[in-house]
């Protein structure tokens, strides 16, 4: 264990021991847990039993870790189709928590946790905070949304388990966030990166220099962000900014986190088995190659998930991290394989925008979604081609149309969009099919 104590940033904590397991021991633990979780899923969840039977695989066939590749994938559709409790492997009497995330057509997915699952979640979030150098003396302001979204409560319980002081501000009300940050002597902040940039800029407008505050660490996740954005945040707020990764289907935040080295995210491999597959063929790719991240929960009781297609593109980093952790790292998620995009921490599918437009107007107009970043905040613009049916000849009719579209989008997706009416045929079509989403946020950087 001596390597643990060599951790340059001194972030080692006995509760992080699982981060430093000798590799053989770690793989052994993973195999035992994989065998148990597959057995549990097979015996208790109709859906998984049918899936395994259909490919002729029995839980006993998993003899080595690599055998995971014989198991069928799970996709978001499986969670939707079995809504709400179809994938639960525990009786409701054992479920202590439910969370949900929005679906493409209004049908959400539901995830459940047993008491034991909550312990695991707490543990991985606590390790996340330890990895970024937080401890019990920190005052952590949690601006992840509290509620059905896993971000808020996931970070909350982890921070409490750490013994830190938690300030549960949830999202929004930026002026109050800044007041709390200043008056409470907050030392660490959890937020979506774009929201934190908004906080920085609001503070600037208020004439407050965040660098003058005790704030020293930012824990950012729930949406992709970039290195230039990290540099901007670190420079403007005088903090270290860390990327964390997670998804509700697997547990919520806590699946992976950067350490103080800031070079890749350590996956909490004792609880989550990561594979990288070719997004088209589903073939497992060797460490180091870029592909789609596939995750298997190794210790989830309420809702074991086998080989979940995250649609996130990344790669596993084979080299050992200078921090000494043995659990492998994945590179920052750069993009997705499907058409889902994330705006201000909210998952959005073009199909949702489509549903909203249809709700406002009977016929679906041609449309395009343009994502940009202004002043640190994600902007979603929806351009709608005006059709004969919707054209009025007064300005107010057109403005009402715009408002109807904007309201429908906000009702369905939960975030505001700028609706722009454009002329017919002004949105480019490629092979008869339009490119639905144009994302310039990377180029915009901030």
């Amino acid at each position, binding site marked *: 264990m001596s390597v643990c104590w060599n951790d340059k940033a001194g972030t080692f904590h006995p509760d992080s021991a699982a981060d430093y397991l000798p590799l053989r021991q770690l793989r052994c633990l993973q195999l035992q847990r994989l065998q148990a979780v597959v057995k549990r899923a097979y015996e208790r969840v109709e859906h998984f039993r049918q899936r395994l039977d259909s490919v002729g695989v029995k839980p006993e066939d998993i003899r080595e870790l690599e055998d995971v590749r014989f198991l069928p994938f799970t996709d978001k559709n499986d969670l939707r189709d079995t809504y709400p409790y179809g994938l639960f492997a525990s009786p409701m009497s054992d479920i202590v928590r439910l969370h949900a995330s929005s679906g493409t057509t209004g049908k959400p997915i539901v995830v459940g946790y047993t008491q034991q699952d909550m312990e695991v979640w707490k543990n991985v979030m606590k390790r996340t905070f330890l990895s970024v150098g937080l401890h019990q003396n920190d005052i952590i302001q949690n601006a992840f949304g509290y509620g059905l979204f896993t971000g808020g409560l996931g970070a909350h319980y982890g921070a409490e388990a750490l013994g830190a002081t938690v300030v549960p501000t949830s999202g929004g009300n930026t002026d109050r966030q800044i007041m709390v940050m200043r008056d409470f002597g907050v030392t660490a902040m959890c937020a979506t990166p774009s929201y934190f940039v908004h906080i920085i800029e609001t503070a600037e407008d208020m004439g407050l220099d965040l660098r003058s505050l005790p704030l020293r660490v930012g824990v950012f996740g729930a949406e992709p962000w970039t290195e230039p954005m990290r540099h901007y945040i670190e420079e403007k707020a005088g903090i270290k900014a860390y990327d964390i990764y997670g998804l509700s289907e697997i547990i919520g935040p806590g699946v992976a986190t950067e350490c103080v080295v800031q070079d890749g995210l350590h996956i909490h491999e004792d609880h989550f088995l990561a594979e990288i597959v070719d997004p088209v063929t589903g073939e497992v790719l060797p460490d180091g190659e870029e592909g789609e991240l596939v995750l298997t929960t190794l210790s989830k009781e309420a809702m074991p998930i086998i080989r979940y297609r995250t649609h996130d593109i990344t790669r596993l980093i084979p080299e050992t991290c200078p921090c000494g952790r043995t659990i492998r790292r994945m590179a920052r998620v750069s993009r997705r394989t499907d058409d889902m995009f994330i705006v201000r921490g909210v998952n959005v599918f073009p199909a949702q925008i489509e549903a909203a437009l249809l709700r406002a107007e009977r016929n679906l107009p041609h449309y395009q979604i343009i994502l940009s970043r202004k002043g640190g905040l994600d902007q979603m613009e929806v351009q709608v081609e*005006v059709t004969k049916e919707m*054209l009025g000849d*007064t*300005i107010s009719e*057109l403005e009402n149309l715009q408002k109807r579209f904007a309201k429908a989008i906000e009702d369905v997706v939960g975030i505001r969009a700028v609706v722009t009416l*454009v*002329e017919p045929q002004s949105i480019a079509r490629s092979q008869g099919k339009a490119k639905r989403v144009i994302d310039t946020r990377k180029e915009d950087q901030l």
Partner: protein
Amino acid sequence: MKLKQVSVFLENKTGRLSSVIRTLADAGINITTLTLADTQQFGILRMIINDWEKAKRVLEEAGAVVKVTDVLALEVEDRPGGLAEILDIVHSVGVGVEYMYAFTVKANEHAVLIFRFDDVDKAIEALCTNGVHLISPAQLFQSPCS
């Protein structure tokens, strides 16, 4: 009595207006009068055109969205109170003006105003009862300025 007005949706971008006007010019279509309502983002070009069906066709072929609306052309005396009297008449029967625009016919002392009322039939009735001269399409397009 009713006059067909051709409205075209335009994005508020340089060159959009000229492309619509060019389309009409190339088809040999004359615009008797027009007005442009605009916001920061988009505009509506409203035109009175003799052969409005042809105009609609060529514009739609060129990919524009076109709306045809019934409007009224009224002859208003070119003196103080000329317009006020007309507005009083329609107001008294509860008809509202969506928008209006004017063009002056030089040959006589009258101005011609184009009105879009929220209830065109009720407006016609009230105006005729009060002796306001509604210009028929035939009269309008014979006028020297067309």
